[in-house]
């Protein structure tokens, strides 16, 4: 029998990476918050790779941290190995990636939520959702009724989840957990644009069965940089990773069994992630490639399970074993879990705004895979923004909208709500036009003031941040005033680095500007160098070295801003604007962009449509006067 349980300000459905950040942000901003999960023992589960970060995803984690989110700190507390990817390709694309102890991370997150004031973490499957008298009403499987002013849907792959392994398929959430079988129905009934996406994960094998002598070992970086700017945890490397390669035989086994793949047999309707393909996809699409790299990653310190990155598949179990055994080092690998594909319900994000609230459902927010994205970091980033905005709505504050030119989080959300996605959206550095400005190393300089303003950055942490800015400014001043005289020693070094020797004294800042030089190389010639943390030197060096390019990119941002300040009213009916093409009218009515800049990024809206909008705006403004 139904019973009324409790009323909260914010209710979060799901305790994955999106739900965690959403719940924590809302509770930390002072709202009474409920977080519901189907299975309490896997809060913040990593059903796919046991790692956090990677290209552009590392940027997201550092931004989440800079704004006061939890993911970076939790990752630092549970890191097995840490590496910066793309070193040597330039600071814009440096990306931090860490192997994570999956069990420990989940326990850490569960405990963090349990300890959080204002937050109630509960195991319950939500089976129905309704809006009654301006309030959201949630019903659990056990017939408890909860009420909330705002609801955040962060259902991940649980919503209508269906697992496929070859010709076998069954209703299931990730990792064999129960799916959320009935909530999707309720959402469809409400009229949300629900659709099916799919994703997949590779097999896990037992460490005892792997021949490591045939594999390349991959160690973590010597200088380990934590995700969190807070410096809360000292991170060190505990376990290595390994690299294996597929070969012609792997290819042959897969191609021979393609007819047994449910994807190729057309049994799965859901759209899979283009940018995270299964091994059979890779082999079909890149036929000419002789081999593919496979990363073998530890799942934790207290388990022998190893993750096979690059081998996700929906082929039947027997075929999986067969192709794994073609790989040198894995000939006798014992698979503990089979690779599987999972299909799930998600929403078309065009139905929501950049604050992640649905246009037509006040108080209803979405985050993570439910919004059509893929990846833990993408999910956490949206969860944070949805949590902040749900709390702000409860308090009657203006929503937080992060700009595309200011963060990868802003870029991710803008892409989702403006361009939409036809397959699970994965963040990539190439999605940002402003890569040189939006670096992972300066995420705190970009976003911590915002985090502070919102109320997620403590006094202590903010103080530390301000000190960092002062140190950077002072060091910049110092290197501009420091002159290095010519000497045999320095000229020897300069020539050896293939850069021109000094004939007169040179400003230290000018030497640092040279691409061939860096702080370390100049140490012995720099007598007045103060003892400073590595990140201070890093910031100063990048600012100096890339100054001209940064300025160039800033000019691009400024130009975009000129379009972003021209706001479009939410309630504008585009069908009534003469001159807009039909396609543009439809798209604009669907997306309801907040400003001209956003409108210009909608596919199907041409420069001429934008001109029509500009004139319309000016005309309206004049009418108002």
């Amino acid at each position: 029998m139904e019973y009324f349980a409790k009323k909260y300000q914010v209710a979060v459905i799901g305790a994955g990476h999106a739900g965690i950040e959403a719940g924590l942000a809302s509770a930390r901003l002072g709202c009474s918050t409920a977080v519901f999960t189907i299975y309490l023992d896997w809060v913040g589960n990593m059903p796919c790779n046991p790692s956090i970060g990677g290209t552009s995803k590392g940027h997201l984690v550092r931004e989440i941290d800079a704004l006061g989110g939890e993911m970076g700190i939790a990752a630092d507390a549970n890191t097995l190995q840490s590496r910066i990817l793309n070193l040597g390709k330039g600071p814009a694309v440096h990306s931090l990636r860490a192997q994570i102890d999956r069990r420990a991370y989940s326990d850490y997150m569960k405990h963090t939520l349990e300890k959080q004031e204002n937050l109630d973490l509960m195991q319950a499957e939500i089976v129905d959702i309704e809006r009654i008298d301006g309030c959201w009403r949630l019903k659990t499987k056990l017939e408890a009724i909860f009420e909330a002013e705002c609801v955040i849907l962060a259902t991940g792959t649980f919503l209508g989840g269906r697992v496929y392994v070859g010709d076998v398929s069954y209703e299931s959430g990730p990792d064999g957990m129960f799916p959320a079988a009935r909530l999707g129905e309720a959402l469809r009934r409400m009229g949300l644009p629900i659709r099916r996406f799919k994703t997949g994960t590779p097999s896990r094998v037992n460490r005892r069965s792997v021949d490591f002598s045939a594999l390349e070992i991959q160690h973590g970086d010597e200088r380990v940089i934590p995700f969190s700017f807070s410096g809360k945890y000292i991170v060190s490397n505990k376990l290595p990773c390994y690299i294996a390669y597929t070969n012609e035989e792997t290819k042959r086994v897969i191609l021979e069994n393609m007819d047994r793949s449910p994807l190729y047999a057309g049994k799965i309707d859901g759209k899979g992630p283009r940018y995270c393909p299964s091994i059979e996809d890779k082999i079909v699409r890149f036929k000419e490639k002789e081999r593919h790299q496979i990363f073998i990653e530890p799942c934790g310190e207290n388990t022998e399970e190893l993750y096979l990155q690059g081998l996700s598949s929906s082929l039947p179990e027997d075929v999986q074993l067969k192709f794994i055994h073609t790989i040198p080092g894995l000939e006798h690998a014992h698979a503990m879990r089979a690779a599987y594909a999972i299909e799930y319900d998600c929403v078309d994000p065009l139905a929501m705004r950049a604050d992640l609230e649905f246009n037509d459902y006040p108080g209803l927010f979405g985050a993570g895979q439910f919004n059509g994205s893929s990846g833990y970091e993408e999910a956490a980033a949206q969860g944070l923004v949805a949590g902040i905005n749900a709390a702000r709505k409860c308090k009657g504050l203006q929503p937080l909208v992060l700009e595309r030119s200011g963060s990868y989080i802003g870029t991710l959300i803008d892409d989702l709500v403006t361009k939409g996605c036809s397959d699970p959206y994965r963040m990539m550095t190439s999605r940002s036009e402003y890569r040189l400005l939006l670096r992972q190393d300066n995420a705190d300089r970009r976003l911590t003031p915002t985090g502070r303003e919102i109320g997620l950055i403590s006094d202590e942490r903010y103080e530390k941040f301000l000190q960092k800015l002062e140190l950077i400014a002072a060091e910049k001043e110092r290197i501009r005033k420091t002159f290095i005289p010519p000497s045999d020693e320095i000229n020897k070094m300069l020539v050896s680095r293939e850069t021109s020797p000094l004939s007169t004294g040179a400003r230290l800042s000018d030497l640092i500007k040279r691409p061939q030089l860096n702080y370390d190389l100049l140490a012995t010639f720099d007598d007045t160098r103060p003892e400073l943390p590595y990140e201070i030197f890093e910031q100063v060096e990048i600012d100096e070295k890339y100054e001209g390019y940064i300025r160039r990119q800033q000019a691009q941002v400024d130009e975009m801003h000129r379009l972003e300040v021209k706001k479009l009213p939410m309630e504008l009916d585009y069908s009534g604007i003469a001159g807009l093409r039909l396609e543009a009218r439809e798209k604009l009515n669907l997306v309801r962009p907040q400003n001209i800049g956003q409108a210009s990024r909608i596919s199907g809206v041409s420069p001429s449509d934008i001109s029509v909008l500009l004139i319309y705006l000016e005309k309206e403004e004049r009418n108002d006067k």
Partner: protein
Amino acid sequence: MKKDAVAAVATPVGTGGVSMIRISGDNALEVADACFRTFSGEKLSDSPGYRAYYGKAFDGEKPIDEAVCLVFRAPHSYTGEDVAEISCHGGIFITQKILQTVFSCGASPAAPGEFTKRAFLNGKLDLSKAESVMTLISARGEQGANAAFNLLEGSLNKKITEINSSLVSVAAHLAAWVDYPDEDIEELGSAQLEKTISSASAELGKLLARFDSGMAITAGVDAAIVGKPNVGKSTLMNLLTGTERSIVTEVEGPTRDVIEETVELRGCILRISDTAGIRDTEDKVEKLGVERSRKKLERAAVVFAVFDGSSPLSDEDEAIIEMCRGRKTLPIVNKSDLKSEINISVIEDTLGSPVMLSAKSGSGFDELCDSIVKLLGTEDFDTTSAMLATERQRLCCEKAKQSLDEAVAALKCGMTNDAVGVCVDDAITALLELTGQRAGEAVLNEVFSKFCVGK
């Protein structure tokens, strides 16, 4: 909101004795001050407005032309912003020269209709005018506004798209290379990158180089005939124009003023000035003419330097050679019907190989025409191939080229590829704006392009 200065020629191009360049925007008067000096020494930016200033337009320290500058103060001006209007002598070369200087002093090119657009946005035009623009747009919208705003159809668009796609593929490879560090994607070697970027830059360079030739074909160029008195300048003028317009006499120096004539020569349009013979003279009227000749020479895009083949080079000839040094000059040795007394090598050393001509009999005329066309670069000018048609396009193209050259410089000095990428992205943006595929400010403003330039 702050409005940066824009400028354009507001009078019809190429005709009329006076051209007017309008600069409008918050910093219009500062821009004008940077390229126009009043004889009175007053600063235009100190002007209360509604005054005319007599002075000179300068390119850096180099005077271009005497001109009058009118100053208007916001909001009482055509656009509702601060406005400077520089009226100079007509003729494409001078006008373009001043306009380019205005751009280099900080103004951006006004897109067609921009002044009107600003006037509208600043409330200087009434709604009915804006309504008519709306009607225009909706009319075009019905037919598919995609095509309507595709600024350039045909060859230029094709060319730019081709160049851009090579850049986009570079950008895409760089992106894949950083986004998939685990997929062992081959690194594009800096040599290969440099090659692609340099060749795109060279293609843009070709387009830019063709701009002048294109102007010669579409709008015409200013040419001046110079030479000491009585070398046959007027005869040459008559030969080119096919009329007996200049006074041809055997007595030195009767052409006392500049005579201008527009001729079409193998498809290019030349506005030729026959100048008074350049020589030291006491005759007051003639002196004035000589002075004008010198000025005309300064302004001309091409110079025809005429020498008398029947007598040795004089000091005056050598002064003329010096004057023409470094300019687009065609040396012509006239009177080839008479006995040659001239030492051609002196001319050749500075100005290149001269055309031998008898302006009187017309022998050598074909060679003259060949040389002129060659000098203008219109020799093999294919009017169907890509051509930059406006100053705005030229600037987009130049901006793209500069960005690419900076990308190459970054590669050469060993900068990381993310910095190179920033420059390549900038170039791509500029090219997309050129073709109207990107909704940058420049393209948005095309909405008013239905008005003629300036108004």
